[in-house]
Each structure stands twice: as C-alpha cells, then as structure tokens.
C-alpha cells in the first residue's frame, strides 16, 4: 500500500452521555455498555442530580428514565432541557408506554443495554465497537 493511499483521520473526542436512572442496577449496566462503545458516560440517580450535572457539564445526549422513583420525575429534566437555548438530544425510557409527546426515541423497560447504545450511536453519529 502506498503512503498516498492512506488517509489518517483525527481521533474524535468521545461524546458525553448523561444516564439518568433511579434503579442503580439498570444505571450501571447501561452505563457500562455505553462506555464499552467508547462514550464518556456520567451518571445521575435522580432528577435533582441530573439538573446539577446539566448546569455544570456539557452533555451531548441524555439517556433519561421518565419513571424516576424519588425527588421529581424525568419530565422535570425534560422541561429543564426544553427551556435551554440549544436543547440536548434525549433517549427516554420507562416501564410505561411511549408518551405521545416523547422528547426523543423511546425504549420501554425492560430493555437490553445494547439497544440503548445502538440508539445513542445513531443519534450521535458514533461508530459501533465493531466499526471503530
């Protein structure tokens, strides 16, 4: 192969994803899967935690449980995001059915973590581990 035929692309900075989920067992599994896909992943266990992180850190995508068990619901986070000048992309999850005004792709619980990772990669134009 000649040197002229090789194209070296700059390595892209991994997008940052905030996983907002009240069930720690779901949260760590989906977070681990997203990290395995190369994303930088932050974790929040409640709506107030999510709002604190969103005010402090630039986030490219939220994986947001609408059915948070304590201290506010995922909809509080959705309202906060919608009030921002540039809304952050979202993937929403819940044990309930797809809400009519879903702010992003909806995944019903229980779900496979890889399913969320695939949606995140599609949303952020990020290669899957097999493509990277």
């Amino acid at each position, binding site marked *: 192969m000649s040197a002229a035929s090789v194209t070296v692309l700059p390595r892209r900075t991994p997008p940052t994803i905030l996983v907002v989920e009240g069930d*720690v067992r779901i949260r*760590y599994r989906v*977070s681990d899967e997203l990290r395995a896909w190369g994303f*930088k992943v*932050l*974790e929040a*266990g*409640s709506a107030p935690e999510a709002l604190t992180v969103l005010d*402090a850190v630039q986030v490219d995508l939220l994986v947001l449980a609408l059915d948070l068990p304590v201290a506010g619901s995922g909809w509080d986070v959705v309202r906060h995001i919608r009030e921002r000048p540039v809304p952050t992309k979202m993937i929403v999850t819940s044990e309930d059915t797809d809400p009519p005004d879903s702010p992003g792709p909806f995944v019903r619980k229980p779900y496979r973590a890889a399913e969320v990772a695939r949606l995140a990669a599609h949303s952020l134009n990020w290669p899957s581990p097999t493509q990277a």
Partner: protein
Amino acid sequence: MSTSSTNLSAKADTPLQTILVVEDEVLIRLVVAEYLRECGYRVHEAVSAEEAILILEAPEVSVDIVFSDVEMPGSMDGFGLARWVRSNRPETQVILTSGAERSADIAGTLCEAGPLMKKPYHTQEVVDRIKQLKATAKRF
C-alpha cells in the same frame, strides 16, 4: 468538566481493579469516578449505601475496593456500609471519607488503611490510598 491527569501510572499496574464510589454529592462522585477511570480503574457509582449493597450483591460485579462517604442520606451511613462489607464481602476493602472531624476515630477501626480521608481531598490522594491498600494486601 476536566479532571487532572497528573498521575496516570495506575493504568499500567492495576488494569482490572474495580472501585465502587459511594457519594451522594453528584459532582464530587462524578469527578472522583472520572479521575479513577482515567487512571485505568473500572468504576461503579452509587448514590447511597443501599445502592452500594445492590451493586455489591450483583452476581456479575466483583468490587475490590469501596470508596465511600460517611455522611449519606438513607437508613445506612458509610460506617454501616463498612460493617456490611466486613460481614458480607470480607475480601473487599473499604476507604471512608468524611468532612466531619469526629468520624476519624471510628473510621480508623473499620478501615485497613487507617483513619478516614478528610474532605476536601485531591483526587490523586484517592489513587494513592488505593495503591497503598493494594500494596498492604500483597504483603499478607
């Protein structure tokens, strides 16, 4: 949010160690967890002692070190979590941290590496304490 990268040497000698960070202040937890990941550790995060136990009980998870705040909301504080770990996961080591001066004596009786880490701490101090624990464990 950036984390310091002053010392990433843990990546070479502790590639598979798993740390469970238990802290109810989300921005502290985030910074500590991210720094440890940059240093090459596998990190799980818990908001409370109750969440920490759910992770420790998960069959697919094996935690080497629990790094926990003492003062946390809920029915169990960091001391209670340390006692639970001693009883149920004796192979797992515990590092406690607190902003309260009075906690130091109690923590010293629970933690292998001596008195608890006082808040505020530098993230590199956490890595140093983890390495200290690992080195101590190797001697026995």
